[in-house]
């Protein structure tokens, strides 16, 4: 399998936030079908991709995401979480995972000394990490 080194955020979206002293990062796969939806939103319906192809690529991207964002995978990509308790929940219907990182914010936004006290940027940090992505996931209908 040939791979290419690209940011995780090439076709993975993420949004992060706080719950008390814990942070969560939700990460999901951009399906090429969403690109169609985006074009629909922009009022350009003419270049819709084939739905069957788009779903197949999205499913393959999701299977890959599950293999990358394991508990150990998260620890490797975000070293500041190395010693913290982490849960990864899969939400296959949404082609998403939710990562809960316990205690990263101490005892909450008012108490923590972290520069980003509500972990608002944590998802974007994760997306910026460069990883080996199978070229087959890049070559499908454009993200």
């Amino acid at each position, binding site marked *: 399998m040939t791979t290419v080194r690209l940011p995780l955020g090439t076709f993975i979206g993420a949004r992060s936030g706080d719950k008390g002293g814990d942070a*969560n990062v939700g990460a999901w796969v951009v399906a090429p079908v*969403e690109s169609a*939806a985006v074009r629909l*939103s922009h009022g350009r319906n003419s270049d819709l991709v084939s739905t069957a192809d788009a779903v197949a690529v999205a499913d393959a991207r999701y299977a890959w995401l599950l293999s990358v964002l394991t508990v150990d995978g998260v620890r490797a990509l975000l070293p500041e979480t190395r010693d913290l308790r982490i*849960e990864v929940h899969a*939400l296959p219907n949404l082609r998403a995972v939710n990562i809960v990182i316990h205690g990263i914010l101490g005892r909450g936004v008012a108490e923590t000394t972290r520069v980003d006290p509500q972990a608002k940027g944590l998802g974007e940090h994760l997306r910026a990490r460069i990883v080996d992505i199978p070229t087959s996931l890049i070559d499908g209908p454009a993200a």
Partner: protein
Amino acid sequence: MTDPIRIANCSGFFGDRLAAAREMVDGGPIDVLTGDWLAELTMLILMRQKLKRGNGFAGTFLTQLEQVLGTCSDRGIRIVSNAGGLDPLALGEAVDELATRLGIPVRVGVVSGDDLMPRMAELLQSGEGFVNLDTGETLLEAGAVPITANAYIGGEPIADALRGGADVVVTGRVTDAALVIGPAAWWHGWNFAAARAGDQAMRDALAGALVAGHVIECGAQACGGNYAFFRDVPGLEHPGLPIAEVAADGSTVITKHEGTGGMVTIGTVTAQLLYEIGGPAYANPDVTADFATIELEQVGRDRVRIGGTKGLPEPQRLKVAMNYLGGFRNSLTLVLTGLDVEAKADLALRTIAGLSLEQVRSTGTDAVALAAQSSLSVRELAVELLDSGIDDPAQPGDAQSFLRITVKDPDDAKVGKAFTAPLIEATLSSYPGMFPTTPPGPASPYGVYWPTTVARENVTVAVQVADEPLVGGTP
């Protein structure tokens, strides 16, 4: 079968776009205007405000209400807001006064009873330990004295207030999603007791509204705001805010007003579904929603349907947001420009705190241990070195690294001038190019968040409409 109810969000936090209420009312047809004003931190902010100014509600809501109350009254748009914060009754009175001043006939509903502070001693005596969900400690073991303690209330009392004829409903700490569950249940005549007794269709309907509420509670975040693929989003300079069209079975279409910026796609809705959640079971006092069952479909331009949501039994205990005063804190950030970033940080730390960078690194994030090793007489010390890591920096931004030093102590004097003055005094005698990002500031108090739960039977919710108490409030 009733038509879907169109619930518009006009606020994602205390401080969100002031013009949003007017935009949502004037932008197109809606049935209910709602919004969330309360984050975890907001209760603490409102407590400080209450100590200073005497009221503990989000006053910006009144400003927004003044702009839309007449139109809402004419068009029969109901308004539901948790801006009551620590003082829902006082906000209810303020809304009454506003309506009287404007000459608009309005029946005001108030949902209260979330505030556990008046009954704290009694609750502790009755055996509520308020065990910290993260640490397992009881309040007593931690020696913590809470300054705010609010149970999260569900949508049922809001539905009761609307059924009781309230045009405007103000609440204290209800769950963010309750602001949608309540109006949807009122509109469709849903039966909360049936859901509790195991009626699956009713549970699914409530769970669908819970998911809808979760999606729209953070304002523009459902419409392309704060979105990973922001470069795909048109009109993000001023995105529209979300509307949930909740059908009788709880399935929902998320949309926004025609002609507004931003977009509503499977991606923008997915991003918000994942925001600040834990496992797939998302609990609310009325019902628990199984997020693993959610199905999304783009059904039109800026229209995403959320269906398939299954409801699970409601939790036995209610979540409580508690805060106590942790002490005082202060921070200063030093700029380290150019070469030898680590050596510069090391010298600064040795000068200010009697610590080497090596000691800081080996102690890690244990702020108490770091303070104990340092020459500073404070309880906690945290040091972060943000190293730009860029060689041969062409631009100033590439050349700058930052050393952030934070101290905490129960005594404000120890983290005020006693902390900042020696640091400033060192600016001509330490590493080359030393300067702080901001002038030294005074110590400021900080709160500690204490996530916990309370038994349902220990919370008594009160619902009143136009000063008359309604019977039958359930948390």
